[in-house]
Structure formats: C-alpha cells, structure tokens
C-alpha cells in the first residue's frame, strides 16, 4: 500500500515561469525551488512535505523547455502530479527526471489538504478520508520503466554499463 500524502491543488495553465521563475534560473535548484509556484501560492514551497501530491487542471507545465520546472517539484518532494492534461515538453521532462505524471480528472473532486494515496503502477488515486477512488490513465510500460529506473539518466547508466560489459 502506498503512503498517504496531502493534496496541493492548482488550476489550469500553470506555466513554467510560475514553476521556475526566470529570475532565479541561474541559481542552484534549492534557491529556484524555494520560489516554485510562489506567484499563485506563496506558502507552497515552504509547507510542501515529501510524499505530497500535486493536483492540477489542464495544460500543466505550459511554456518553456526549462526542466527545472519539473526538477523543482521533485526537489520539494512531490511524489506525483495528476493533471487533466500537460504541455508536451513538461510531460517528457518529468518522466525523464523520474517524476510520475498522471492524466486524470482529479482536480474537480479534491480540496487542498485532502489526504490521498496514489498507486504509481496502476494510476489509482484514493481519497483516504472519503474512501473514494478515481482511476487515472495508467502510464505506458515503456515510460513506467523510465520512471522506475529513476529517470532517463539512471536508465542510460544501466544501458552503458551493459554495453561496456559486452565490449
């Protein structure tokens, strides 16, 4: 059984400038992450706990290719994102960094702070106190493999290690 985390709820079109403001792009990820989402919720970076779940509306991560947008959320301990839809580059970046991203209509039924569980393999989202479950679209096997490896880099590490052995 997966662990319980709190729900952070955001709306539509949360863009990469909100997630990773340009002003802090030359700074370390710890600094950048402390400003993550501050334009829409100044308490987020301070109060988010490892294992929390980020729930959002449509077109999450729209904008720039800066992967610090996904990296900042991972750094802050977000376990997974569940949104109605994603901007394509953000979606790829999250997977490549090993941050699970699910497509599901959860934002309509949760409140900020709700306690919830999410099973990464199946995409089943459960509101603990209401005993209610919602099925998100499961992540395809190929991408789940990337996520479970911890992202593209650990995945490639394994691949190159194998190739070196063969040589």
């Amino acid at each position, binding site marked *: 059984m997966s662990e319980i985390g709190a729900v952070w709820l955001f709306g539509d*079109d949360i*863009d*990469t*400038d*909100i997630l990773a*403001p*340009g*002003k802090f*792009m*030359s*700074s370390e990820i710890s600094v950048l992450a402390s400003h993550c989402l501050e*334009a829409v919720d100044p308490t987020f970076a301070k109060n988010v706990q490892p294992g929390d779940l980020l729930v959002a509306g*449509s*077109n999450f991560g*729209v*904008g*720039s*290719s*800066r*992967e610090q947008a*996904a990296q900042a959320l991972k750094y802050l301990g977000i376990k997974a994102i569940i949104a109605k*839809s994603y*901007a*394509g*580059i953000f*979606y*790829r*970046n999250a997977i*490549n*960094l090993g941050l699970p991203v699910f497509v599901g209509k959860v934002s309509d039924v949760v409140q900020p702070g709700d306690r919830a569980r999410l099973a990464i393999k199946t995409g089943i989202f459960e509101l603990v106190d209401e005993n209610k479950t919602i099925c998100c679209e499961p992540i*395809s096997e*190929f991408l789940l493999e990337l996520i479970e490896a911890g*992202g*593209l*880099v650990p995945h*490639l*590490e394994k691949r*190159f290690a194998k190739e070196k052995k063969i040589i």
Partner: protein
Amino acid sequence: MGQSLAQKIIAKAVGKEYVTPGEVEIANIDLAMIHDSGGPRRVKPILDRLGVDVWSSEKIVVVTDHYVPEFNNETKAIQKLTRDWVKTNNIRSFYDQMGICHVVVPENGHLKPGMFVVGGDSHSPTGGAFGAYMFGIGATEMAGVLATGEIWIKVPETIGINWSGKLNDFVTAKDMMLYACGKLGMDGGKYQAVEFSGSTISTLDMQERMTLSNMTAELGGQAGIIAPDDVTKRYLKNVGSIDIDIEPWFSDQDAKFLESHQFDATRLPPQVAAPHSPANSIDITETKGTKVDVAYIGACTGAKLSDLRMAASVLKGRKLASGVRLLVAPASLKDQETAKTEGIMQIFEDIGASILPNSCGICAGYGSERLGEDIVCISSTARNFQGRMGALSSGVYLSSPYTVAASAISGEISDPRNFIGIKNE
C-alpha cells in the same frame, strides 16, 4: 494510406517506410541544437556521470544567447563553462553571442527539409519553417540525445492549419498566430504536429514563416511544419546550403489529419494578446486606449530582419510618445548588420530607442531590462505569462512589430493602420 509530412520525416529518422501515429518509436537525430542556459552547464554533469562522449561533434550546434551579455560571476562562469565544453568536445558549429539560436541556426544553413532535429529550447518548432521536424526538449533528455544520438517519440497526428487569401497591409504572421492561439487555445496543438498550408503561407517570406512555426509552441504543438517550396529553396541557397531536396517533403493527398482548421487571411485585422496569455487575443479594434510604458521589439519571434523592417517603417520620421521607452533587441547580429545597411538601425537611434544585445533578453526573463513593478509593456515577443518578463505586477501585451511601433509613438495600444501617411510632429 498516405502519410503526413511529419510521418514521412519521422519514418526516415526511424529507418522505416511507414510509421503509425500513436506508436512510440526510437528515432535517430540529424541535428541537436543547444544554448548556454539549458546546454553545456546542464548536460555536462550528466554526460560525465554516464562516462560517455557526445555521439557526434558534427551534429551538434551550440549557441550562446540567454546569458548575453555576461554581467556577473554566475553568468561569466556559465559562459566559460560553455566555451570550454565546446572546445573539449571539438564542436565546430559554435555561435558565441551572435544572436538567438532559432534565428542563428537557420541563417547559417544548418536546417534542411526532411531533417529530424531537437533543440534545447521550447521555441525549437521554428525549424519547421524549413520543412524539418524540429521540437524542443529539456536538458536531461538532451543529455540522452548527446550520449546516444537517439530519442523516443510518439508518432504524432497532424493538425492542419490552412490560411487562404492575401493578408491586409500591416497584418503579419504574428497576427495570424495570435489569432490562432485565441481561437484554438494554448493546448489547441495537443502536442501533435501542426502543419501550416494555404495560399497565404505561400506568399510569406522565410522569416515570417519562422514566426508561424515558432509560435506553434504557444499553440501547444510539438512541431509546426511547412512543406518546403521555391521560397524555402531560395533562402537555403542564399545561406549556402547544398544538396537541397524539397521533392519528397509534403503531406500525401490521402494523409489522414486529426483536425483541419481553415482561416481567412483577408478578414484578419491586427491582433493583440492581453496579459497573461497569448490565447487572450482580440482584434485591435476592440482594444480601448491602454497606456503603455515600454515598447519592446525583441526575441526570435519579434526582432528578425523582417520584424525590424516592419517596426522601422512605422517609426520613421516620428517621435516616441512622452514617457514611453522603446527597447530594440535585434534577434541576430547578422540581421542587425543588414538592418544597419538599410538605414533601419538609424531610424531606431533617431527616435531614441535603446538598442539591446542580440539575445533572448527580457523575453526570457533575463538581463538588466526586466520590467519593473506595474509596468505595462507592448511586445513583439511570443509569450506573456505573468512575471515572465519582470515583476509579477507588470503586464505584457503581445502584438506584431507594426503594432508595437504604432503604440510606442502614440503612448497607447494603437492600430498601425491609422498611422499610414500621418506625421506626428
């Protein structure tokens, strides 16, 4: 079943005769473009960790355009790292402070029809103007590309955007894209391939086509391609490309598109997108005297030679409205030099514009000219998210360079068509 242009290019990159939309394939990269922000400083640690060299020194182009000019220890260190990495990896295609990657790469002949290209920047769909399949990726994914020369891709469906008829005077590719964003929304492209076609597109020059493809990012498409034609061929010849073959690169008549949208260019007025989204586009006739503090001609979508010409044609012989600052950041050094020989830079200087470096500048939230508190800016750039170009309380209106110029001389958002032949002494 026929194939779309996107399918044909991806099939070639995958090494198959036919690819099916929706399937995940591993494709070979023809060219990888990176810049100083998402490039060496972010990919080097990953390549070091993997213990591998780049897969091909010849297929990588590096451009410095974000932290330009270097102004403090942090940005100086980023540029030094970039230059050192280029040297160590023996990369010959390096454009250091020559302008914005999306403009510099094609103007140096690196893009050709049929190529499968990735760029470490979200405006990479710009390359689609040349009949290449080009899209933006993040730094980790780029490191994977540089290590392997491969990338996974879900073969996209194609969304057709067809424009017919002649554009009116003072109406541009930027207006076409703002209109499309307003109509289809920022996720209208559904992360699929957008293909632009129609009689309007045929008449656009390459830099205007680049604006269309570039802003496919704002439409949420993965790529924004235009089938190459004689205009493409002429441009490529001029920049010294050889072995140009445009023949195979078109969508088959019976290719199945996911959606097709038809727009009429003859009825399109100039567009303005209100803060804080390109999808907030309205006809300029609906804007009501919004005062502006800053007018910005900049970025890959808004300060190429064609854009500079547009702005200058309105500004020539006129004065800035009192209190308005006009900032001009030509998209590339080459375009700036051509503009200089045409007398365009003189027009900007005469009117009192501040000429900024050939870089992404405040469009990407970088540099010293970031917008202050409560500043209202009209900008020829592509993106107006809250806080992107400066303070959270600033607001950015997007429009064509014509409209930015007209607004700079009147002090409020203004229709450039009202400035034909009128002098403001």
